[in-house]
């Protein structure tokens, strides 16, 4: 129990962010026309590619002699990149088609 309370007091800033971000996410998505549900989902999909930052940090902190950790880290960075690049490019392709004809 003390561990939990220590944790909360030590990480108050992060807890604030979590709570506020939950509300921001809810507010942002409210009242979006159904037309944009697919691009929006795809865009959100690209944004959670931010997990690549964690993968890069794993690699940067990896023991230079630990082959297993490096291999797994390499795959993690690769997959994260796929998520980011593929996600943003596909969303852009979808939205490119929404531009009005003039």
């Amino acid at each position: 129990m003390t561990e939990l309370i220590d944790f909360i007091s030590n990480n108050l800033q992060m807890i604030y962010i979590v709570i506020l971000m939950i509300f921001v996410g809810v507010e942002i998505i409210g009242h979006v026309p159904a037309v944009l549900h697919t691009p929006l989902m795809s865009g959100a999909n690209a944004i959670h590619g931010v997990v690549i930052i964690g993968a890069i940090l794993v690699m940067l902190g990896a023991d230079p002699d630990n082959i297993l950790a490096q291999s797994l880290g390499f795959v993690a960075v690769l997959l994260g990149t796929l998520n980011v690049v593929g996600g943003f490019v596909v969303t852009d392709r979808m939205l490119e088609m929404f531009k009005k004809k003039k």
Partner: protein
Amino acid sequence: MEYIFSLEFIYLIASITYILGLKMLGHPESARKGNLIAAAGMILAILGTIFLYQGEVAMHIYILIGVAILIGTIIGWAVAKKVAMTKMPELVSLFNGMGGASAALIGLIEFHHYIGNTISIVTILAGIIIGSISFSGSMIAWAKLNGTLNKPIRLPKYNILNNVIFLVLVAFATFMAYTGSDSQLYLYILFFGALAYGILFVLPIGGADMPVVISLLNSFTGLAAALGGFLYGNMVMLTGGILVGSAGTILTFAMCDAMNRSLFNVIFGGFGDTDATASEGGSSTIKGSIKKTTASDVAILMNYSQRIIIVPGYGLAVAQAQHAIHELEQLLINKGIEVKYAIHPVAGRMPGHMNVLLAETNVDYDKLAEMDDVNPEFQNTDVVFVVGANDVVNPAAHNDPSSPIYGMPILDVENAKQIIVNKRSMKPGYAGIENELFYNQKTSMLFGDAKSAIQALISELKGM
């Protein structure tokens, strides 16, 4: 001044771009710019993380990171650019799975660095479970949308079985965290257990519900990324992850709403499945008979109409008839006929997917009418042309309380003067129920594949 070049500041900027980007994605005019802004923030965050890292790093690690990013960029870019617009939903699922796998791998590597710190271990184990479920679930969703796996597969008592497996996973993780075990064997048992659960979780769900599942798994991956952020005290992972987690959850509910279903129902309900086989033979509940028509009759009818509304559905997407329907629309407009598309929120293979498909063929954005705007217009419409849509135009949603789709918002096409329905056969739609619209006095059925039927219409109309 130096602060501007610090990693914290870069992460702050990146976090703002995600919020701004998502916000702009919600409006048709700003959506594309919003996506680019978020992408720019992501690039900034990645570069900052690599080049502003404090600590000794061996050269070959930098090279490995560079190579991984290069390969990922080339493959991701090529796949995203090449894929057909009708294949979009499965691609989103695939990329989502990649993110989930990445999150799970991070947990696998970091596990033994944090032994003894219970809170961090809990974070890591939760990240592994959620990331793995997201990965294997997304792969199954991908296979289902792809058509590789086209039938829901159900183990006996699958609901109970799945819940038991999930509880066992959580209990096992709790046990690992509580005892502070550093066993690699346990870690991998947890990892593969979560992968198996992801598969079993998605397998029983029907292909038409996959968009909801993908949206749900999307928010799972967001959560997994946020857990990584918690572990490292990394603000950009935390903000990005939580943002997607909460936005994705709301989006999931919005999609369920549009289909008049609860999330619970999607995951645990075998909706319409048992009835589908039973009702295929007997249409005894609906009186009347269907009227078949031909392309030339429909062409004549359209030629002498003033207002036509096209209702595109799943069948149009499957037949890839979006270019054909646009050609038909142009032809009719050139004859001085007013043409509009009525888009049901869940038309196509994903909410909003139909709009993307039609936009691809340069259909004017203004011609795509949303359900609530177009419904009052049907009574002044001469011809409604329903292409491959079924449940979204089924009047049972209004007047048959016993129907599984009762209460679902539909397009009121039965108010129009004439209704032409193009379908491949009389097979019921996704809900597995009969559609009395087809037996309506005003309805004529034009059987055939959407693409060839529309092309036949076009050549008839051109000859007039």
